Every structure is written in C-alpha cells, then in structure tokens.
C-alpha cells in the first residue's frame, strides 16, 4: 500500500534531488525513404518524421503534467544517413538541412543520426557523409552526428580513425566563433549501440523496428543524496547496495514514463537507458557521487575503482526495474556537463589519462572534453584509437567527443551554456603518433570476437 515514507521520498527525489526523465527519444527508421533522387529522398524523410513525431512533444508534456515527473528533452534519432546517401548520391548536406527543418517543425531540440557505420570499412555514401560533417554541424543547430569506427567483431578501421581526427578539427575550426560548438555534436564510437537515446551519439540502428520510443532516465543527485545519508564507516558492499536500490527506483520511473509514452503515441516501447547522466546543475554530478563514496577529489587514486562499483551497481539495480534495458546504461562522465568534474579538472586533480582509465569501467568514453586548440589531427586520431582499443578488447561501448578549443590553451575555458555546460582546456600529451596513424588499414578483430 502507499505509505508516507515512500511518498515523501519520491517527492524529495523529484523536487530537490533533480530526479527526472532526461529524454524521451523517438527512433524512426528512414530505410523506406531511400531513393535514387536525393530531393525525393529528403522529401520522404521530412514527411515520415513529421508523421511519426508530430505528437511527440505534446505527449511528453501531457505525461509530465499527469505524473508530475519532469521530462527534460524530447528528441529524435534516425537511421544512419550514410545509408540513404549511399542510395541517392548527391550532397549529403541536403539530408542535414532536411533533418534540421523536421526537428524544428516537430519541436524537438536535437535530432541524431547524421551518422555512418564504418567499423569494417567504407561503403557507398560513408565517405561523402563523413566529409560533409563539419559543414553539416556548422549549418545546423539541432543535428547530431556520429561515426562508428570499430567493434569487437570487426576490429578498428584505422583509415576512419585518421579521417575522424581531421573531421573533429575541421568541425571545431568552422564553429570557432561559436565556442567550437560543432565538435560538441559529434561522437566517434567503438561498439556503438543501436538504441541509445542520449545525444549526441543517438542513431536508430538498422536492426531496430520502424518506429520506437526509448527513454533515458537520470538521477546522479538522487544517488548522491542516498549515499550522503549512509554512515562514513559503512562498508562498500552496503554502499553498492544503496546505489542498487536507488537505481531500481529511478529506472522504474523511466519504465513508467516509457510505457505511457508508447501507449499514447501508439509506438512500441524500445528500451530504458539507465544512465546516470550529469548536468551542470548543482547536485546533479557523478563526480560528487564518487567524492561521497570517499575520495577527496574526483581523479584521485581510487576513482577508477569507485566508478567501477557505481557503474555496476547502477546496472544491477536497473535491470530488475525494467522489462527492456538497453542503450548505454551505466554512469556517464562528460566533463563539461558535470560541475564536480569541471572543478576537479580545473584544480588539476582530474587528467585525461585518468579519464581514459575511467572509460574502461563506465558506460561512455572521453566525453565533452575540451582540448588545446593547437592539438593536431594526428593526436586526436591517437586518442580515438586508444578509446576504440579499450572498447574493442573489453567488448564494451567507448566513444570520443573532444572539443578542440581553437585559439585557446591549457587553463583557458570554453562555455557552451545550457545542458552542455563548459569546461577548462585540459592538457594533452603532444608526442606525435603521426607515423602510426598514417599507416591506416585495420587493427584486426581480437581473439575474443571468436566466441561461437
């Protein structure tokens, strides 16, 4: 039965601890919009997105009103556009502009899927799309892009890695007068999930159904508040248990909202992505959870272990709570979006090398990290290759979203504002991997891929 303690706990979670549904993302397949004529294809894309998603924002608002649960974002993810560009030829920018218009007309704030899957090699459309990314992300506001350059089953496409280093730089350069924001909308993946609802890496994988609702929940503030009530001498088993139970409650809310959205929109429910996703708001930080576990500052020795426990406990708690868990599911460590990480990076406690270690045990990779504006494309490619190797060998998703701060050096700051936050330029090891990157080719799939 309903009891007073539970009710107060729920209200506190929502009102004070920033518990919310971070996003409802509608995944839309555009495979049936493919056409040999790019203008016809764009027209079909626009019509399909409008048809499927016209009630998305309204349904989200209704659910928010009905249940009193904040739903922060409504978003859309689509089939990797490289697939359509391969069939139609022509300048892929047309697709980006179509996606932008559709997103604005429907009222969502981001549309992901200006993407290419090149983990084994390039196919028709892939190269054209990838080379158009800097322009596409400069000329649009809402479009997000991603490229999958490796997987455990295929190895790492080092030609793509070399190319993406240059694409990241170019994207930052073209938006240099807007805080290099273009680079904040581009993610490079290894083992990309097909159903991730979070931007900028969301796309609607080719294996997904025609139209689907995915929900991303979040609540680092709730987890931290739960841990703050624990005694300082409670052992880590009990701490893990608290996190598990809290993650259960958070995920249940996501399941409820997802089922409601699915029913109201007449679209199948895909997955709940139970990722602790921080925002710059006070108290909504993953780094503060790690500090609550007992570290003086995020980045101190012990951070990787604490994060491993946190990530695992979140997954265990969430899995009981939902019929379908998917996406990234774990703990995010996007530096510029997490007030605690920004502080730790600014005071030197958190370095890129430590972040790289942390990516081995959490659910994303080197995310929203601002690097010096003169970092070469080869060094960026080296960072991508390192992250991809961690993901490939450990059969997990890793990703890179770096923002070269054009014209700025270590110690200076970039401010994006809003949910993207802002952060200090972090130090990067500038020894050159240029010869290795220029070799190109493919790092072969590791032996663990042969698991049949």
């Amino acid at each position, binding site marked *: 039965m*309903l009891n*007073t303690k*539970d*009710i*107060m*706990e*729920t*209200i506190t979670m929502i*009102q004070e601890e920033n518990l919310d549904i971070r996003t409802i993302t509608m995944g839309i397949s555009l495979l049936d919009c493919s056409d040999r004529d790019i203008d016809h294809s764009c027209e079909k894309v626009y019509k399909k997105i409008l048809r499927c998603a016209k009630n998305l924002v309204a349904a989200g608002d209704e659910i928010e*009103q*009905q*249940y*009193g*649960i904040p739903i922060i974002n409504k978003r859309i993810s689509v089939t990797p556009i490289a697939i359509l560009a391969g069939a139609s030829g022509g300048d892929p920018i047309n697709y980006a502009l179509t996606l932008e218009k559709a997103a604005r007309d429907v009222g969502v704030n981001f549309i992901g899927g200006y993407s290419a899957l090149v983990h084994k090699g390039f196919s028709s459309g892939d190269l054209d799309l990838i080379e158009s990314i800097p322009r596409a992300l400069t000329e649009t506001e809402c479009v997000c892009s991603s490229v999958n350059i490796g997987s455990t089953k295929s190895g790492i496409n080092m030609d793509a890695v070399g190319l993406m280093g240059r694409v990241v730089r170019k994207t930052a350069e073209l938006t240099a007068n807007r805080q290099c924001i273009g680079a904040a909308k581009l993610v490079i993946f290894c083992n990309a999930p097909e159903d991730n609802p979070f931007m900028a890496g969301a796309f609607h994988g080719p294996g997904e159904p025609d139209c689907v609702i995915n929900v991303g929940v979040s609540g680092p503030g709730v987890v931290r508040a739960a841990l703050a009530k624990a005694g300082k001498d409670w052992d880590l088993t009990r701490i893990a248990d608290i996190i598990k139970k809290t993650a259960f*409650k958070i995920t*249940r*809310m996501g*399941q*409820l909202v997802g089922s409601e959205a699915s029913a109201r929109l007449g679209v199948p429910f895909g997955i709940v992505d139970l990722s602790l996703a921080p925002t710059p708001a006070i108290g909504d930080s993953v780094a503060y959870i790690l500090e609550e576990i007992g570290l003086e500052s995020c980045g101190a020795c012990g951070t990787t272990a604490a994060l491993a426990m946190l990530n695992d406990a979140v997954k265990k708690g969430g899995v*009981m709570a939902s019929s379908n868990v998917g996406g990234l599911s774990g703990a995010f460590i996007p530096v510029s979006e997490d007030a605690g990480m920004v502080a730790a990076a600014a005071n030197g406690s958190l370095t890129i090398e430590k972040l790289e270690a942390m990516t081995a045990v959490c659910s994303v990779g080197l995310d929203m990290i601002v690097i010096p504006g003169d970092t070469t494309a080869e060094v960026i490619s080296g960072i991508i290759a390192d992250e991809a190797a961690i993901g490939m060998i450990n059969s997990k998703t890793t990703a890179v979203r770096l923002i070269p701060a054009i014209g700025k050096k270590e110690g200076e700051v970039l401010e994006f504002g809003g949910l993207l936050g802002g952060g200090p330029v972090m130090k990067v090891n500038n020894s050159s991997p240029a010869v290795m990157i220029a070799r190109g080719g493919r790092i072969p799939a590791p032996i663990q891929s042969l698991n049949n």
Partner: protein
Amino acid sequence: MRAVISVVGRDRVGILAMISNICAGANANVIEVTQSVLQEFFVMMMVIDISGMNCGLADLRRQLEENSMGMKIHVMHEDIFNSMHRI
C-alpha cells in the same frame, strides 16, 4: 485510479478545508488522510480517488497551487509510487 496530494508548510487554520473544497469541486473523493503537526510545521498526505474527476490532474494541481496559502503542495498519480517502491 488514485492520486496523492502532499502538503508541507507552516500550520494555519483552514488548510484541510481548502484542499477538501477543491477536491469536492473536482469530484475527487477523499479516501485517506494522514497528517501531523510538529511544532509549527504541518505535513499532510491525502489519497484521493480521481476516477470520477471532472477535470484533469494537471487542472487540479493548478487549482491547488493557486490557493496554496504559502504551503508546498504536490499532486502525484499513484502509478509513480506503485512503480518505484514495489518489486
């Protein structure tokens, strides 16, 4: 179908009456009330039946917030609690 109204704030005359009136106006039957007054603070939870309500839950919430008398009032559908606090 039920909802929970929670009220927190400084105790004063008329809180229960105000909320009950609004619920009656919306045709929401009050099923259960728990309240305590600790020193000068007042906390109340009210479970109401909304299946016969003549307006939406959002409307009810708005009416309560407009007449809040300085209290913090939250209205939540029971599904949230049912889903979060039970295996």
